[in-house]
């Protein structure tokens, strides 16, 4: 297998174990230059490990990691790859200007220092010491460090975790300006809205594997399931054939239908004369995650350590098959 040199990022069958834990488990991912990609997944899904591998801070157990067709180390050395870690890196007893200036000075063609400070919103803080920065300010310094060398690819590990709503919006405005110059951005997040709003492409990872890969519209279609519930008894199976319904369950004397099209489902229930105490609950983000993590469970091969396999003909996996690129 070869890695395409034109891709900003190319991971091929990459596996990384920590002891018995497979943090990244046979991951393959190509990102063409110029894309803004969100790496979406719950805590412990392997997002930070993937970023560590892309930076050469971790060595893959197997598989290949290429950045612009080269090793991560060389991509960093040539100034094409930079990153914003989730935490740390702000060494005590330095000022913002000293630290950003130092990092900037290690690059062959950095952005002007004043421009970097302005982009990161640090003009008023240039003389402040690292130990006196708030969490949000510290995050802006990390952003400035990643931006300083004007890299072609920037990796952001949960960049907005420490930011309030306004700072988050400002941060993404800066990233949009950066992306508009043809730069590639890969950011990890566990906020679906953030992936939705700012990424061209969303890669959902769970337990070290890709659970879904597509535009945010595709991902949302995959996971944004409303729940329609009515008082009912009997078997759930016939309900699953209603329009829009992907799964049905009867508990506590009520039928709970997970549907991609709540309108169609309600109409069908009405036509069948089944509307009793009807309730429609729109998709919650937690549900989205649960739906996506269920997907990987469904496709996991049977193994002594793995969870018991479920029937592959289940409703969720059936609907997901078209949209999901499952790596086994």
């Amino acid at each position, binding site marked *: 297998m070869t890695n395409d040199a034109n891709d900003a990022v190319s991971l091929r069958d990459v596996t990384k174990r920590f002891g018995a834990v497979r943090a990244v488990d046979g991951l393959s991912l190509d990102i063409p230059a110029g894309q803004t990609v969100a790496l979406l997944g719950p805590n412990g899904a392997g997002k930070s490990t993937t970023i560590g591998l892309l930076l050469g801070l971790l060595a893959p157990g197997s598989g290949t990691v290429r950045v612009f067709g080269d090793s991560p180390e060389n991509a960093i050395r040539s100034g094409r790859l930079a990153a914003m*870690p989730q*935490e740390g*890196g702000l*060494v005590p007893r*330095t000022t913002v200007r000293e*630290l950003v200036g130092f*990092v900037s*000075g*290690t690059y062959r063609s950095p952005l002007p220092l004043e421009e970097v400070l302005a982009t990161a919103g640090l003009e008023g803080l240039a003389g402040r010491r690292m130990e006196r920065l708030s969490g949000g300010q510290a995050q802006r310094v990390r952003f400035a*460090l990643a931006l300083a060398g004007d890299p072609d690819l920037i990796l952001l590990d949960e960049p907005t975790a420490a930011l309030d709503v306004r700072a988050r919006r400002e941060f993404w405005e800066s990233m949009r300006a950066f992306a508009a110059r043809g730069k590639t951005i890969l950011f990890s997040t566990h906020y679906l809205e953030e992936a939705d709003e700012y990424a061209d492409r969303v890669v959902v990872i769970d337990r070290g594997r890709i659970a879904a890969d597509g535009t945010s519209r595709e991902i949302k279609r995959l996971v944004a399931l409303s729940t329609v519930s009515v008082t009912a008894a009997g078997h759930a199976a016939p309900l699953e054939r209603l329009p829009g319904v992907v799964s049905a369950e009867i508990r506590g004397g009520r039928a709970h239908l997970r549907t991609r099209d709540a309108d169609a489902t309600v109409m069908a229930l009405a036509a069948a004369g089944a509307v009793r105490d009807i309730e429609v609950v729109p998709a919650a983000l937690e549900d989205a995650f649960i739906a996506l993590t269920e997907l990987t469970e469904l496709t996991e091969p049977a193994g002594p350590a793995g969870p018991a396999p479920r029937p592959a003909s289940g409703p969720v996996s059936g609907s997901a098959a078209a949209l999901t690129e499952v790596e086994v």
Partner: protein
Amino acid sequence: MLGYIRLEVTRTLRDPAYVIMGFAMPVTMYLLFTNLGVTGDDRVMAALYVMVNMAAFGAIGSAFNNGGGIAEDRSAGWLRQLRIVPLAPVRVVAGKAATGMLVVLPVIIGVSLAAALLNGVRMEAWQWISIVLLLWAGSLPFTLLGLAFGYLFSGQTASVLNIAANMSMAIIGGLWLPTEAFPSWLRAVAEWTPSFGYADLSRKVAFGEAPGVATALTLTGWLVAFGILAVYGYRRSGRVG
């Protein structure tokens, strides 16, 4: 790499532990030891003898402090940050060693100035120059041992080791009490320590003697040993997990 050295030197000068242990304390100790309860010819002797010893003690402390800081840098994520900027890892180590060689200078010069200006120590110009250069160049083994500690151990362990090594170097190497006061077996041990050799080269120059070849060779041996340890520590810490 110059940018890195500048940043690290700036950080060190702002470190209270460095300012106190690596400068203020050795200079104060020098002035106390040479002015309290010492009179006449003894005082002139002491002013020169203790000058070399306290400058050496301060330089060793500064060199250790520099290397021990690496352990702190690691826990602060600074070493990781350095790996994601276009600065070759070998330059980071070389820069840190160069920083060590720079931050030993204030105490060497400070104690020498205290000797000349406050204690009236007088020597030939070549003696002053030789002593400062010997104290400066001779601090390299201690800088390397400090780097080894910093790369091999976590923050707390590294600082405990620094203090332990600094104290034992000072005491056994005869920087606080002259080895002439030691029992003969301890004096024999002392003469093999790097700190004894380090200070002895300059003491010989200060009292108009030629530095001993054996002493120089012993110190060179320590330089090689600590250099190997530092390279080993660096390699081990830099291993990609």
